[in-house]
């Protein structure tokens, strides 16, 4: 084969690759693109079957967003989500950091088995637990309160974050702690003063994941909360804005886009660590 043919073949492979990627992106990103288009379109434009839906036939409008922010409970739901997220992150950090360190350094072979056991509880889905939990929540008087979510969400964030942090602590060389202990720190002191400052990246990852898990949770939120003003955003939008016969598609799509894309971008920055926790964690 001549150099030219090699080149042509390389271009062909590149072109095919590009085509495959473009097709996949069209599939994965289209719903979000469609949300973005819909949220700025006049309702009369959206609801006219003769209009090409890919084009704007009237001037883009901010009316849907105005309705969303001022005439619905959307801001309240965003605030609720942030409130629950903040407290769950706090509880998760306080329990998962020591547990992760303990599994990485202090508990040896038993700890390894315990670690796998903790990871496997992540596989027990809300679907099996939400019915008994609904009874538990109402017996402690937390039904319809955001604190029910604050109480229950750590049950899935702690297992995963413990596992993730264990991985982080394991790669920190033991020598560093031993040196600190020779310098007069206790074991606990060495952990707090030496290991923790080196694990900022791990802690940050845990914060982001915990927050996104809270944001994505749906089943418990739907089960424990009935008052519209106490929904989180992932429950409020599909139940409260969709219920009824009139769909405010513009506002609805705005609600979905605004709540999902920023968190997606943030998550994307950490996704490699997340996958490492998922797979290396699971098979090693």
């Amino acid at each position: 084969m001549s150099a030219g043919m090699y080149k042509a073949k390389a271009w062909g492979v590149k072109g095919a690759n590009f085509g495959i990627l473009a097709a996949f992106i069209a599939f994965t990103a289209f719903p979000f693109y469609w949300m973005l288009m819909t949220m700025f379109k006049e309702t009369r434009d959206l609801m006219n079957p003769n209009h090409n839906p890919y084009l704007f036939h009237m001037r883009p409008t901010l009316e849907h967003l105005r309705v969303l922010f001022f005439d619905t409970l959307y801001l309240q739901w965003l605030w609720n989500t942030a409130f629950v997220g903040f407290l769950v992150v706090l509880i998760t950090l306080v329990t998962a950091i020591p547990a992760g360190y303990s599994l990485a350094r202090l508990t040896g072979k038993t700890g390894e088995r315990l670690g796998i056991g903790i990871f496997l509880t992540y596989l027990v889905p809300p679907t099996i637990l939400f019915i008994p939990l609904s009874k538990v929540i109402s017996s402690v008087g937390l039904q319809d309160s955001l604190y029910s979510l604050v109480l229950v969400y750590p049950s899935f964030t702690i297992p995963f974050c413990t596992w993730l942090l264990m991985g982080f602590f394991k790669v920190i060389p033991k020598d560093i702690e031993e040196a600190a202990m020779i310098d007069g720190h206790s074991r606990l002191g060495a952990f707090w003063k030496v290991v923790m400052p080196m694990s900022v990246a791990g802690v940050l990852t845990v914060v982001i994941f915990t927050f996104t898990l809270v944001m994505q949770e749906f089943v418990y939120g739907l089960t424990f909360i009935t008052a519209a003003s106490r929904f989180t955003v992932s429950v409020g939008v599909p139940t409260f804005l969709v219920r009824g016969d009139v769909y405010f598609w513009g506002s609805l799509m705005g609600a979905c886009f605004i709540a999902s894309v920023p968190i997606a971008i943030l998550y994307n920055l950490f996704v490699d660590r997340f996958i490492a926790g998922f797979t290396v964690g699971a098979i090693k």
Partner: protein
Amino acid sequence: MINQPQSLADNEKWLGRAMIAPAIVYIAALVGVPFFLALYYSVSDITVGSKEMSFIGLDNFRHLLHNRTFLRALRNTFIFAFVSQALVLVLAKALALSLLRDFRGKWVVRLLILLPWVAPISLGSIGWLWILDSVYSVINWSCRALGIFGPMTWPIWLGQPTLAMASIITVHVWRLLPLATVILLGGLTSIPQDIHDAAAVDGAGFWRHNFQITIPLVLPIMLVAMLFGVVFAFTDMIVIYVLTRGGPYDTTQVLASLAFFTGIDGGDLAAGAAIALFLFPVLAVSAFLLLRLARRTEVT
């Protein structure tokens, strides 16, 4: 200093136990206890309002096995999980291969591909609800404009049983494809280049290379991707809740959504718990396989 009795801060054994105790207690209280409660509820007659409950043996399960909606939900659960996983694996493999090489702007491409996984699924599903709308579906509009649909063709995606099932499978694939792709990509990048080079020198073609080298080497990690995917698809009720609520006429009901509608909306906690427990065998098998994989990779 040296002769002092060891304080808790230095005693590794007790420190280790003390540090892990809160996590264990939390998980035991909020995963362990409810799990056993679920087992107990499923053999009782508890409802949302009841103060007392009595043991009724396996009656709940016996009733379920004669309930056509339940049997349909059981079948749907398997269809949704396995069809979507089969599609996800094939598509994820193709996508991971084309993401393997480096190119400019790769991070944007990756972000766009990851969107369905990282955005809250309840909100993503609403996007699909609009795309699949009975009157304003953009898919129908486009197909008609391109001449694929004739003037009489206008499918109601979420209103006809077969189409509704296909729509739900599509949304599951959409949602789980990014996760499987990223997991597989991790597996593919960990294959040493030498192996590919050696195969090329030996004259292995595309298919042979794929089926005799790449796939066997990424098989364990592919299995991990599949197990997680099955667990997610198997236990999910969000997509169904948003798109069809199990309709039309319970034809897209799955165990998770049926457990919700029976246990919470209907108030029959005992029957709801019994329905949800049918998910357990699959989860137990998945956990067992994951552990087997873990052990095997430890040995090699």
